[in-house]
């Protein structure tokens, strides 16, 4: 823990300096709530408030997407990023949603947080990019079971599969929390809100939910950074990553190893690209 406290101290020091010398306009980080085992995203605008920044095992929320809310981008945005956030940031850069020079990245190597589901399959504990690094890099633990759950799911018969997902989407309440929190969902206007065009019906029934869920996982499938935020925020605790990882798995098998958001110039999203030598199953 002391390790972590040191980091927290260092984080606050660095944050204070950044605000002091006006490198950044404000800093997005984690702050205390009245629950000891909860933190909440905070926006620190002044050096004196730097001490409000927290760094502990309860810093669970993904922060990357908050940078999108700043439409004016008057000043650089400082933001605390763990491995998952850093990949999300890269994602946003690749999708032209932010410019690298508009953000100042405070890297925080992360041993995994209280949310075991979110952090369970974390393959990148260290930020893959950062401007400043707090604390020391930590050892990465290679993930062996990245697609284990998916493989199990695949083993089911098609009826079982259907039954399973039907069960899932019966529960869904289409609150769109998964979409709103997702760093990959950067569309100006989500298909799911375009009732006029007819991508998505208003009715609340499992098919519409399913249509939403499936389409969403197809939309994020080739770009998902596996931060697990969607699952974390789902009020109905739906196994959303189980849906998302399926496409990742297929991509890995069909088009070679692929992890999104590992660098600023990632290869084009699988669906925005092609290769003459791709496998052909439609002959």
């Amino acid at each position, binding site marked *: 823990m002391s390790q972590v406290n040191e980091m927290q101290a260092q984080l606050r020091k660095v944050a204070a300096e950044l605000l002091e010398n006006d490198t950044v306009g404000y800093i997005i980080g984690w702050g205390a709530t009245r629950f000891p085992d909860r933190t909440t995203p905070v926006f620190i605008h002044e050096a004196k408030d730097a001490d409000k920044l927290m760094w502990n095992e309860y810093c669970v929320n993904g922060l990357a997407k908050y940078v999108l809310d700043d439409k004016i981008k008057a000043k650089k945005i400082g933001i605390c990023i763990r491995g998952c956030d850093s990949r999300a940031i890269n994602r946003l850069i690749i999708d032209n949603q932010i410019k690298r020079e508009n953000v100042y990245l405070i890297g925080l190597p992360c041993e995994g947080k209280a949310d075991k589901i979110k952090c369970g399959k974390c393959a990148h504990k260290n930020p893959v990019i950062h401007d400043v690094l707090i604390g020391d890099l930590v050892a990465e633990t290679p993930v062996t079971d990245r697609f284990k759950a*998916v493989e199990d*799911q*695949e083993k089911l018969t*098609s*009826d*079982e*599969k*259907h*039954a*399973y*997902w*039907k069960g899932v989407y019966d529960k869904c309440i289409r609150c769109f929390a998964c979409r709103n929190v997702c760093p990959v969902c950067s569309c100006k206007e989500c*298909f799911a809100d375009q009732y006029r065009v*007819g*991508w998505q*019906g208003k*009715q609340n*029934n499992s*098919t*519409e939910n*399913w*249509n939403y869920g*499936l*389409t969403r*996982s*197809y939309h994020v*499938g*080739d770009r998902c950074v596996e931060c697990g935020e969607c699952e974390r925020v789902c009020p109905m605790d739906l196994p959303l990553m189980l849906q998302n990882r*399926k*496409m990742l798995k*297929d*991509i890995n098998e*069909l*088009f070679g190893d692929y992890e999104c958001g590992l660098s600023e110039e990632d290869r084009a999203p*699988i*669906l925005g*690209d*092609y*290769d*003459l030598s*791709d*496998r*052909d*199953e*439609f*002959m």
Partner: protein
Amino acid sequence: MSVIKEWEPKILVFTCNWCTYTGADLAGLNRMKYPENVRLVRVPCSSRVNPQFILRAFMKGCDGVLVCGCHPGDCHYVSGNYFTRRRFMLMQRLLEYNGVDPARFQARWISGSEAAKFRDTMIRVSKEIKALGPNTKFREDWYVKEAIANEPSK
């Protein structure tokens, strides 16, 4: 029992204007026969087909969907069908993963000269789908009923 006899599947075929649709026309020209239950939707290029169309079709009660285009390398628009290939390889797997029988959604390359291949494909697919029976998965009966209700009957 008798119901099943009556039942004809609804099969949607997206065809690119330059190859498969031409192939279908050629089939017609040669008076080749295939089941009535396939209906073609003409698009300029198979890459125009948004996978969400397929979901939509199943929701609305389609029993089988097929996407057809030029053979890789012959695309009228140079590279469209390469995108098609990737999109639907993934979509097909995703649907299967969600419990939709792979036979219900397929993709095929059929060139403008392959009238016979077009016919054979249609015959085969419709046989397969028919064998599978009506699609219940990923389908909202309510829509179908509603729709039929809305249809002015005579």
